[in-house]
């Protein structure tokens, strides 16, 4: 009796047949990108760890709906501190040659295009040239950034993660680095994490399925109302301590994190690379709670509520003009709810978030100085609905719609829709190789966003430099990406 799964020894036949399709799509997409200035490819935020597959002998699909997104089995494994809890988790049980390290990078071809960019009216500038709005389009072969993962257990119930990550030019930083004490007192409700880590969010931007400049971020996770000096991103790793717990099957989960108010920065700054502004001396709090329900033949249905309460400096202690320590902290918060809903092979990921900033942060005004006329505390509402259709464990189709509306502008003189964002993304991932040793995915994605009066949050989430645009001008930005995403 043979079932001819396209895996293991049967992968070759599938690979041949599908390679024809892959090459066909690839060639169609490649033939025709025009060429102008470049946009940076985002650092991969996504995490899939074949080192664990190698340790436990499970295929990628055991822990991932489609890697790198976790399914509930993967969530339980992660909640248990990267342990299967079968009394074989401690390193002493592993072959001495086993080393828990994985890497991931994605060679790609991509096309990026953004409208209403400031370009010279005469290419090259010079006499008579003025700055005019223009569409900038670039296309070509490229690389993503690279993740070099090491994660696992130091001992039973003591786990760790170390994730050096680079951008495509090999500028490295520590994306994650923490130690976690699991099942304190033998109780899964008490786990302590210490270091730099991703906030406990149900819909992870670190483990999601989109890769392109426009689609490869959740806009809402990095959004701040135009004019705000707040640098917070809900999708960014933070540095601090987290207490988390879960039921045995992780249907019920909670986490409380206390993190430095410096956007996960190191060396008392607000970033993980040199040259960043100094941080302040305060702490933020992130709270998350989720509950899953057995949906019978539909699958598992999970809901989450979350809130982040933080502070950011509005001015700095200085020495001869050099910034030393952030002062004049202004508060802000983000609250919302999310879901992870299965309708058999269809997965829906809805999220809603409300954000609010202090008036000084919202207007980038030091709190020891008067506010500009019309200043008010800004707020926004937004969210997305993402859908995945799993044809089988090796093929998934993706789609996402995202919308952000400014509720209260930072200045009452601004148009009500200034800063609004609308974004769409579609794509598919096909995993011809899905062993317990490594994984390969063919990835095809198209994403487009519209932002009003502001540059899009494409790429690494920080966007392009500000443009002198009318605050009612639509800016369209699109990405087409084809790549081979592999992890070993």
């Amino acid at each position, binding site marked *: 009796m043979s079932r001819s799964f396209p895996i293991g020894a049967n992968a070759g036949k599938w690979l041949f047949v599908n390679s024809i399709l892959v090459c066909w799509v690839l060639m169609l997409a490649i033939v025709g990108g025009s060429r102008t200035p470049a946009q940076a490819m985002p650092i991969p935020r996504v995490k899939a760890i074949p080192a664990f597959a190698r340790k436990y002998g*499970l295929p990628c699909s055991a822990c991932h709906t489609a890697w790198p997104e976790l399914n509930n089995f993967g*969530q339980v494994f992660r909640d248990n501190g990267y342990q299967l809890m*079968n009394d074989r988790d401690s390193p002493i049980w592993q072959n001495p040659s086993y080393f828990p390290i994985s890497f991931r990078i994605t060679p790609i071809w991509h096309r990026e295009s953004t409208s209403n960019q400031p370009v010279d009216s005469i290419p090259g500038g010079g006499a008579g040239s003025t700055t005019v709005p223009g569409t900038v389009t670039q296309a070509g072969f490229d690389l993503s950034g690279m993740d070099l993962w090491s994660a696992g257990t130091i001992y039973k119930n003591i786990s760790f993660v170390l994730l050096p990550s680079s951008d495509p030019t090999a500028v490295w930083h520590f994306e994650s680095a923490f130690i976690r004490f699991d099942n304190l007192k033998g109780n899964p409700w008490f786990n302590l994490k210490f270091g730099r880590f991703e906030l406990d969010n149900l819909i992870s931007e670190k483990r999601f399925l989109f890769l392109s400049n426009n689609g490869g971020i959740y806009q809402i996770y990095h959004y701040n109302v135009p004019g705000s000096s707040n640098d917070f991103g809900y999708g960014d790793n933070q540095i601090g301590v987290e207490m988390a717990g879960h039921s045995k099957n992780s249907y019920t989960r909670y986490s409380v994190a206390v993190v430095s108010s410096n956007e996960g920065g190191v060396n008392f700054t607000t970033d993980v690379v040199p040259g960043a502004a100094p941080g302040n001396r305060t702490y933020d709090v992130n709270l998350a709670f989720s509950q899953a329900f057995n949906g019978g033949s539909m699958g598992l249905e999970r809901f989450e509520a979350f809130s982040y309460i933080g502070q950011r400096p509005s001015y700095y202690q200085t020495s001869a003009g050099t910034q030393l320590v952030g002062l004049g902290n202004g508060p802000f918060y983000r609250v919302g709810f999310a879901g992870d809903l299965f309708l058999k092979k269809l997965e829906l990921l809805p999220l809603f978030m409300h954000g609010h900033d202090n008036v000084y942060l919202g207007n980038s005004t030091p709190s020891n100085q008067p506010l500009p006329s019309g200043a008010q505390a800004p707020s926004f509402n937004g969210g997305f609905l993402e859908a995945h259709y799993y044809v089988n*464990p090796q093929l998934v189709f993706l789609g996402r719609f995202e919308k952000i509306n400014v509720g209260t502008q930072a200045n009452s003189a601004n148009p009500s829709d200034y800063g609004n964002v609308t974004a769409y993304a579609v794509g598919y991932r096909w995993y011809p190789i899905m062993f317990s040793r490594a994984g390969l995915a063919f990835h095809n994605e198209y994403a487009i966003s519209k932002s009003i009066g502001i540059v899009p949050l494409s790429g690494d989430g920080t966007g392009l430099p500000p443009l002198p645009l009318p605050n009612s001008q639509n800016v369209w930005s699109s990405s087409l990406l084809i790549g081979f995403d592999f992890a070993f």
Partner: protein
Amino acid sequence: MTLKNMLVAFALGSMALLSAGAGPGFAQESHIGNLTGHAESGKQLYRRYCVGCHGPDGDSNGENAQWIDPKPRDFTLATFKCRSTPTGTLPTDQDLYNAVERGFVTTNMPSWRPLTPQQRADLVAFIKTFSPRWKTDKAGTPITIPAETPITLDSIQHGRVLFQKMECWKCHGAAGHGDGPSAATLTDSKDNPIRPYNFAVGSRFKCGETNQDLYRIFMTGLDGTPMPSFADVIQPNDAWDLVHFLRTLQPMDTKEAEIWKAYVAAHGADLKPIGPDSAGGGK
């Protein structure tokens, strides 16, 4: 290339790939309580979670199987360790469901409790498609487990006598460490080396963790391993005595351990050692 052309290429490529996902149908079902598992649904789950070890044909030849010790179960043989049914018979669907949910401690088989009950039931249905036995044979009738007898010193001491008399020590060792004189020679039904259970390593067994589970293990045996069924050898009360003694071999704070520690502290010197030189292993 225009945006329109790119989208058309994308759509056509997507449709072509989508069409590659069809598969055959399976009629096998499982019944666990109110749940009915369907093999067709279980096939997708098996492919996602199980195929790496158990293999596409369920014959324990998954691509990772060669690295695993102990080896994964060969579903084509329809021989299962953890059953509520007599030795030699097929397990019930509930037995397979429990095994999937519980996992097997000290092996690569994890607990699949994170899956929904329906998904586990579907997996059980699919597992049953690998062997024709499921079409010709019916599952055995689960054994009856009588009420547990009181945990007393007499019960534990009698259990110790049985441990000696029934030669459990030959495999499990005098102290239950899995290091008896026969331990190194044991193989399973596929001639793979197999180690007897070491009672000193923890509180869980491969087939459960309660006293009832332990009772069931040696009354049904672990088919496919050297661990036989003792259903025809000892009476239920004797079996409970053995359970109570075996609990004293584990590093747990149980009533059995409490009673036994107190007795050993006072009378340890009087105990005859368990092993080949002991006439009775008794008091």
